[in-house]
């Protein structure tokens, strides 16, 4: 079956309510050769993934529609923490609850260095917590998480 996504490139979904930060993160990611989709809220991120805001997924995990989700090829989600409505933490929890998307690495960004916040995010499944302003060197830290996720995926496919 022809994959819609180029398997050699990683696709990152970036979420931030700040226009300036969206522009920055997009440039940072593209400079690092990632394919990028940027949205301005957690609910738009869920919409993009095809998840709804509800606690319970309406689709059962073996349905054909889930195959379409896989073809979106989102390999990593990077989200701001402080957003109106759904915070980055809420989004993290929602992703981790999803049978389709729980294995996608989630990275949280925040302008505030609050250890309890950082620990909570990491404990609840975030791969990394980046302090803003995000630098190119931070973005370079993402690649290992993506490579690992991809090799886990391949391992899974073989079984």
């Amino acid at each position, binding site marked *: 079956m022809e994959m819609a996504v180029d398997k050699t490139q990683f696709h990152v979904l970036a979420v931030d309510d*700040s226009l*300036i930060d969206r*522009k*920055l993160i997009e*440039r940072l990611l593209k400079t690092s050769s990632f394919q990028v989709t940027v949205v301005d809220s957690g609910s738009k991120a869920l919409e993009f993934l095809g998840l709804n805001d509800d606690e319970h997924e309406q689709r059962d995990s073996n349905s054909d529609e889930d195959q379409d989700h896989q073809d979106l090829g989102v390999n990593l989600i990077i989200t701001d923490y402080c957003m109106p409505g759904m915070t980055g933490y809420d989004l993290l929890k929602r992703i981790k609850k999803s049978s389709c998307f729980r294995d996608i690495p989630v990275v949280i960004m925040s*302008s505030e260095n609050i250890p309890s916040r950082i620990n909570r995010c990491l404990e609840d499944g975030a791969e990394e917590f980046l302090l*803003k*302003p995000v*630098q*190119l060197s931070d973005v370079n830290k993402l690649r290992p998480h993506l490579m690992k996720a991809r090799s886990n995926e391949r391992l899974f496919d073989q079984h």
Partner: protein
Amino acid sequence: MAIAALKTQRRNLVQSMFDEGVLDNQFNQLQDLQDSSNPNFVEEVISLFCNDAERIITELNRYLNDQNVDFSKLDSYVHQLKGSSSSIGAYRLKLACVNLRQASEERNMEECAGAFNSIRREYYVVRSKLQVLIQLERHIVNLENQQ
């Protein structure tokens, strides 16, 4: 050579902004993200920043002049301005935002007014210098394209 003189002027302007703390290293990061495929990146970010900052300063002014100051709304706006200042490397403006957040937390109206004036002042300083920088940049690019 006109271009060399302009480049020196540009370099000196940026250096003076760093020396005065108007800009910090984050601005270098922005410049590093600009290349031939995105030749207007810095200018675009600056433009977005200025529009956003002016919108927020207007709101802050409004909230501060209310009979009953809504400190939580105030804080939310300052947080936004602090974030975008930090993102473009507008160091002194960011510090002014930190001061306003502090004053707001303490519910100290006098301090808030003072901190807000600093924000306005620092914003105009960074905006006017960045505008000069953009003009220099455009001039340099025009001359280079003519060669």
